[in-house]
């Protein structure tokens, strides 16, 4: 168990800056998830922490010890890889025990600990098999076993679930969380899947283009996204955005969504210029009331009682080319379409006109220049 600190860590591959100014503090026992779209530098950050890639600048410490130049074997960490990287020429037993053997533990002790780890992961019956003879889920557990048997001060995991099928992924997700809680080992977990991040993490680091966008608990990220990117990335589906005028009436700021006047909880002086970008989560939209803007439903996706309603952003309010909204599940959502998530027993049909209302206090305001949240 140890704290982990990145201080101004940089990484460039020639001209390409993979990581810029990465600064992060992870508490002992934290389950910290790096999340972001593919290619944003998550694996690179993790590999630098593991000592598998050299840093271009900055320092990395584990448990207060500067490990920036220490080899991977000298950092007291264990790692789980996306493709598991099990040693194909060794039995499961040797795979799990390899790290202990390299550290010069005696045979009896290795055996005891390997069997204890196997017990925990229900691998006891497979100890003498080769990885080739195991199912995907079992291989994944061997990879976990290889990590926990060493009782390291940190676990590093790089998309460990993405080679599993959907059902097994959900199940293993909670197994990993429980295991981590029980062992209390500081964990850094990399994923591109924001659902995994929200469900597993105690602390989330959202990254984009090698730059940290926001660090916070799942709740914070959901309720107070720091910028448009985080707002759109977190949540399923991600936040809706629209462009609107900023008007000040009686010292209070307000905007318009179609016909509806939307009061804002932001102090008027924070709003420069006559326009801003606004965000509203699909589950916060009120559908089918008597007030609000009438819209024609484009598409109704029904998941039983839960429904996702698609409708066009009001005339002239689409954020257009300002930025492609990076939805987590649907990369590059059409910015002229908004989504509402409703759970009720009403039937909605394509083409039907309903009223959409934005409740007060649920509207996020972003600076159109910097894309940062205003509050």
């Amino acid at each position: 168990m140890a704290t982990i600190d990145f201080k101004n860590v940089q990484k460039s591959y020639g001209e390409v800056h993979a990581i810029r100014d990465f600064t992060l503090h992870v508490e002992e026992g934290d389950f910290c998830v790096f999340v972001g779209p593919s290619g944003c530098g998550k694996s690179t950050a993790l590999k630098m922490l593991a000592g598998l890639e050299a840093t271009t600048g900055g320092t990395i410490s584990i448990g207060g010890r500067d490990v920036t130049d220490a080899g991977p074997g000298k950092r007291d960490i264990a790692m789980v890889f996306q493709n598991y990287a099990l040693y194909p020429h060794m039995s499961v037993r040797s795979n799990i025990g390899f790290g202990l053997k390299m550290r010069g533990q005696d045979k009896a002790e290795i055996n005891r600990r390997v069997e204890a780890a196997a017990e925990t992961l229900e691998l006891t019956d497979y100890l003498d098999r080769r990885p080739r003879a195991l199912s995907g889920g079992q291989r994944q557990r061997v990879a976990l076993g290889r990590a926990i048997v060493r009782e390291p001060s940190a676990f590093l995991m790089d998309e460990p679930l993405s080679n599993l099928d959907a059902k097994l992924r959900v199940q293993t997700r909670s197994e990993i969380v429980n295991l981590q809680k029980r062992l209390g080992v500081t964990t850094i977990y990399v994923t591109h899947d924001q659902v995994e991040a929200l469900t597993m993490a105690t602390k989330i680091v959202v990254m984009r283009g090698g730059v940290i966008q926001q660090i916070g608990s799942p709740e914070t990220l959901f309720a107070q996204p720091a910028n448009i990117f985080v707002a759109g990335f977190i949540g399923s589906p991600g936040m809706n955005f629209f462009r609107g005028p900023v008007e000040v009436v009686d010292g209070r700021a307000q905007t318009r969504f179609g016909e509806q006047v939307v009061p804002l909880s932001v102090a008027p002086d924070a709003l420069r210029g006559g326009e801003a970008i606004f965000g509203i989560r699909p589950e916060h939209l009120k559908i089918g009331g008597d007030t609000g803007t009438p819209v024609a439903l484009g598409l109704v996706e029904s998941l039983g009682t839960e429904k996702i309603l698609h409708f066009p952003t009001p005339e002239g309010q689409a954020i257009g080319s300002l930025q492609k909204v990076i939805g987590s599940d649907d990369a590059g959502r059409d910015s002229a379409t908004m989504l509402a998530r409703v759970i009720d027993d009403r039937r909605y049909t394509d083409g039907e006109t309903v009223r959409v209302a934005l409740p007060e206090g649920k509207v996020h305001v972003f600076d159109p220049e910097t894309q940062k949240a205003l509050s």
Partner: protein
Amino acid sequence: MQKRSYLGTFGIYATVIFTCAVLLFPIYWMILTALSPRTQLREFPPRFWPDDPQWGVFADLLATQPFGLWMWNTILVAVATMVLSLTVGVLAAYALSRHRLRGGQGLGLFILTSKMLPATLLVIPLFAIFKSLGLVGSLWSVVIAQSTLIVPFATWMLKGYFDTIPPELEHAALVDGCSPLGALVRVVLPVAAPGLAATALYAFVISWSDFLYARTFLTTSESKWTLNVGIATLKGEFVTDWNTIMAASLMAAVPIIGVYLFLERYLVGGLSSGSDK
């Protein structure tokens, strides 16, 4: 897959058997001649079956020629060349495959082109160099000269093979506490075993087959000859002694054919660099 007709199946077997028969006939003829009494070799029509096999020919060969010594020299040269090229080749191939090294691309290109050097050109400067180093007449001269061809070849083959092994494997080994060399030896090499076997086979076959270098550098003393030099000389000296020459050829061919039969299964895979896995 549609089912083949009986005629088609028969056609395939007939063609395969015919091809193999034609290809292997010279080898059969070598064995047959080696075992035939010398007088029979001057009969027309020739006999196609050894009705009176003469096993004594091998003993005669060992008694009248320093044949055992030539065999031993050949083995020494082939093993030394294989070990040297494989060691140097493994290290270089691994570095080229895994490390983004400055100049690595140029070296890769160089390795490819050096496979095309005419050996008869290299033999001249090498002769001059070995002469000044006093290496002419030493088996080492042949080992070194052969490495000019085999090291680039081994490096190229092994790099292709290492490229198919995911780098996470040695990342895992490093995290588990191996040194970089330890990760190579304990994890990468065992996984690359089929590629190593294929490369070793190549190195061994090429080296066992060498005639030019041995003929040029080792001629001075008969006790330093390799099998190929010995056989070529026998052919020149005893023009009619075909059973002795064939017996010598058979003994030179048997070890390398044995190695081939043992390692052939890795050949196709090694050539396509494990891509058909």
